[in-house]
């Protein structure tokens, strides 16, 4: 237990140092997540006429929260893992007494801390544009929201890492992620709050993991929690499912892996 703690602390600090080294690059990565902010403009303009059951203020808050959640849950493990497998660089990591997954996990986690200030800066900028929308989440919602963000990140990481394991069999594992990402973009609530979806679509979407990755944490952050217990249950269930699938694939994949180029 103590050893695990020490390993994670060291990995965090090492990867944090890596990330801070490329600060300018980080700014650009933050800026590349502007998609929710573009949609914010569209929806705010659309809601001026009161045809939707959400006010412009609600929508500004919602999309700023979406932007933040998205910043905290960006995952790119599949691109790195794919390269490691194709180039055979995975081999040395297999010899170490720590599962290589943790290395990726901690590099993602530490990047969150490095990108934090820039993300808040951008939110502040948009609050200048819409000063009437400034808000504070209630303390309990904030805590639950942070927990939901952490879980959402873990779930998204698990899903992408599971697809990444397909790299043991094919050279284009990232195509899986590209397809999954489409579903994620359109069903997670990034393009619109789920309450604006047609009822039938919403009912179906709630059974998929997507809305819990963005819509659920974002609605906690803006003090409009919905079915909190059910949301957390769904996230845990999906994580468990992907965890089991992931470990099984990992064992099968290692049998298959031949260490190209090594």
């Amino acid at each position: 237990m103590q050893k695990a703690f020490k390993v994670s602390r060291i990995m965090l600090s090492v990867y944090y140092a890596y990330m801070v080294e490329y600060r300018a690059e980080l700014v650009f990565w933050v800026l590349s997540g502007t998609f929710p902010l573009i949609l914010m403009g569209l929806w705010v303009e659309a809601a001026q006429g009161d045809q939707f059951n959400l006010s412009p203020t609600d929508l500004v808050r919602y999309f700023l929260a979406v932007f933040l959640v998205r910043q905290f849950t960006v995952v790119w493990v599949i691109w790195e893992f794919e390269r490691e497998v194709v180039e055979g660089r995975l081999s040395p990591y297999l010899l170490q007494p720590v599962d290589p997954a943790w290395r990726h996990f901690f590099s993602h986690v530490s990047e969150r801390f490095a990108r934090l200030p820039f993300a808040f800066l951008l939110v502040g900028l948009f609050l200048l544009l819409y000063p009437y929308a400034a808000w504070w989440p209630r303390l309990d919602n904030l805590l639950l929201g942070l927990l939901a963000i952490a879980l959402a990140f873990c779930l998204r990481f698990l899903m992408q890492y599971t697809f990444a394991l397909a790299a043991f069999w094919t050279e284009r594992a990232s195509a899986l992620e590209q397809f999954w990402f489409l579903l994620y973009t359109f069903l997670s609530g990034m393009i619109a709050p789920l309450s604006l979806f047609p009822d039938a679509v919403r009912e179906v979407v709630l059974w998929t993991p997507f809305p819990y990755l963005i819509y659920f944490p974002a609605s906690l952050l803006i003090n409009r929690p919905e079915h909190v217990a059910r949301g957390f249950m769904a996230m845990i269930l999906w994580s468990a499912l992907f965890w089991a699938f992931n470990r099984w694939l990992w064992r099968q994949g290692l049998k298959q892996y031949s260490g190209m180029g090594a």
Partner: protein
Amino acid sequence: MERYLKVLRLFWSTAIAAELEYRLNFLVTALISLGGLAGSLFGLSLFYRNDYEFEGWSWEAALLVLGLFTVLQGFSAMVLIPNLNKIVNQVQQGTLDFVLLKPISSQFWLSTRIISPWGLPDVIFGLVMIGYGGRRLGLGWVDYGLAILPLTLGAITLYSLWFMLGATSIWFVKIYNVTEVLRGLLEAGRFPIAAYPVAYRVFFTFVVPVAFLTTVPAQTMLGQGGRWWLLASALLASVLVVVANRFWRFALRFYTSASS
């Protein structure tokens, strides 16, 4: 001129031959663009579900914009993105030297070396969407024909922006994140510019000229653009082409090659 055409034919035939080794890829990319199409339509329909419409844009007219966006997306997947990635590699590895030594314009070489057929599904789906929207609106061949000019100007604008970004790799080498920023902002072109609040409209007309890429061609197609927009579009495209070329020459002065 003739020499350039001949070179272009050689470039593209070899590039296509190389890409066709991965035929299964075509199926995968076609599926992905079909999924993207369904998603975009779904996203647009969310706005039009409750009797709302973007100011002055009916559902069919908004489809034209989305179709034009999809066509341009296909165009950049075919020509712009693969070549841009190539520039970055060449700067990183120092192989840009060989390009500079060749007796043709280095800008031409770098912008046309590769063509990737994988953007084709997007182009086709985009054209289908334009055709569908246009039929419902009763547009004729003349209207489509008129839109070719602003669309070409939009494509030229897009190319110049990409190429200038590519040129910055001389200084910054790895620029994938910068291109991601541009790509993220261009997403705004999925919707007519009239759908945005004023501050956004100013930004997407004067700072990142998204309005000229999709909205202006769609307006021309609908016959409501007005000459001034067309003129502005032409002006923007020609200025950017010249600037891109100048900028590339300027950037080359700072190129010091790698590891030699």
